[in-house]
């Protein structure tokens, strides 16, 4: 399974991202966040603090939010990875969470936004009708340095409304 290029241990891996299976050769030490961005060109996943605090790199692993900077790509084999591109990648047809961010002006510079979107996308399935306090708690693991939290909290509740409407239709 492993083969050395120089002194660097590498592995050939099969990685499912946004429902597409990729075969890649990557250094064992390469983080999932870097493989998504550099090897697969999925630059929606942002890299901020790279030690798990900021939440910008959040992706879904088997439907649950996780930090892609705290995982080696090698260890993501056998799991379904969903990035922000998998949540919605069409400006003409945004996902419910993305539409909620537009409706509520939930982004300023936008750097942290993909991490919020992947987090909220999973959260509103778990809690389809969050109160403001719950919405605030739900995004407390993601940092926004523009301090746009007020509108982001509103976007969580708006996204839940949009999803409920979508489910009814």
């Amino acid at each position, binding site marked *: 399974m492993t083969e050395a290029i120089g002194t660097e241990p590498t*592995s050939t891996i099969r990685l499912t991202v946004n429902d597409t299976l990729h075969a890649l050769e990557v*250094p064992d030490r390469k983080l999932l966040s870097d493989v998504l961005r550099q090897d697969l060109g999925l630059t929606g996943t942002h890299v901020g603090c790279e*030690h*798990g605090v900021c939440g910008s790199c959040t992706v879904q*692993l088997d439907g649950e939010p996780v930090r892609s900077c*705290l995982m*080696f790509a*090698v260890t993501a084999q056998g799991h379904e990875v969903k990035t922000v591109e998998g949540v919605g990648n069409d400006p003409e047809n945004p996902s419910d969470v993305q539409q909620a961010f537009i409706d509520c002006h939930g982004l300023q510079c936008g750097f942290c936004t993909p991490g919020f979107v992947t987090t909220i996308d999973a959260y509103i399935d778990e809690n389809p009708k969050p109160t403001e306090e719950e919405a605030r708690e739900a995004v*407390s*693991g993601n940092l926004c340095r523009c301090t746009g939290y007020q509108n982001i909290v509103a976007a969580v509740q708006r996204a839940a409304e949009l999803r409920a409407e979508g489910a009814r239709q």
Partner: protein
Amino acid sequence: MKPSPLRIHRPTTIDETLDLLSEHAASGKVLAGGQSLVPVLNMRLAAPSDLIDITAVSGLDELSVAGAEGRAEITVGATVTHRQVERSEEVAVANPILGEALSFVAHPAIRNRGTTVGSIAHADPNGEIPMILALTGGRVEVRSTRGQRTLSAEELNIGPLETSLESDELITRATFPALPAGSRAGFDELARRSGDYGLAGVGMILDVEGATVKGLHCGFISVTDVPEVLNLGEAVSGAHLRDASEVADTVVDAVRDFIDPGGDIHATADYRRHLTGVITSRLFRRLCRTDSAQGRNTDSRMTGTDTERRRV
């Protein structure tokens, strides 16, 4: 790439894992959820040559509550995530303080990957889980190619971030006893921001018979080097629940004398000592309330919104 070069092994059986650990004892590390280990690697505070990823190993994913009523035990395998433990109704019934403390471990995105046994192995005195293991009288099972042994929390924790594990040993599971009937338990901590390590934190188990206090055990985070348990049974035994206000001062004084906080850029030692007393007082009074404090906590954990609890 932030970590230094390393090789990742992905064994699928415990025997294979133990062989790899034995082979790479000098410079190998076990990787489970990685939520404490990978930051250390990303910052290059550690540079192991080999990581042994145990997440695909069969037989390490047990999460169960078993045993006779009053003597039940929760078993948590090495690859069980915090979230799985936190979401288990059975665990919440058997040992509510475990789930309560877990809700303070970072954020859901971290708890989705981080493992409960991994926290114990990491032995961070700022961590909630090593303290809960000590406070509830739990133990860990440890295996290596040389055999198997069982360690109490006291035997395991020998210093900050330091355990008595040998480098070729793997904690295969942790066992948390259910709380005895009649006991009330609670956990609280204060952090500067939601999900940060607590500046101070307290876990408490109060034994009650009727309306009379029979015993009290306290554990602490961030203010002792290892998860030590303070037994205040003598100080409180015989007190009536409605006298909580008078007894609380005695408890707070004993706790402030017992702990040994250090100061750092986040808080001075005096401030941590002060906070520990404040949390102790509030927690003790809450547990002494005659309307069941336990029920309230269970409800709030299930909705995941106990914000009042966070604002100490």
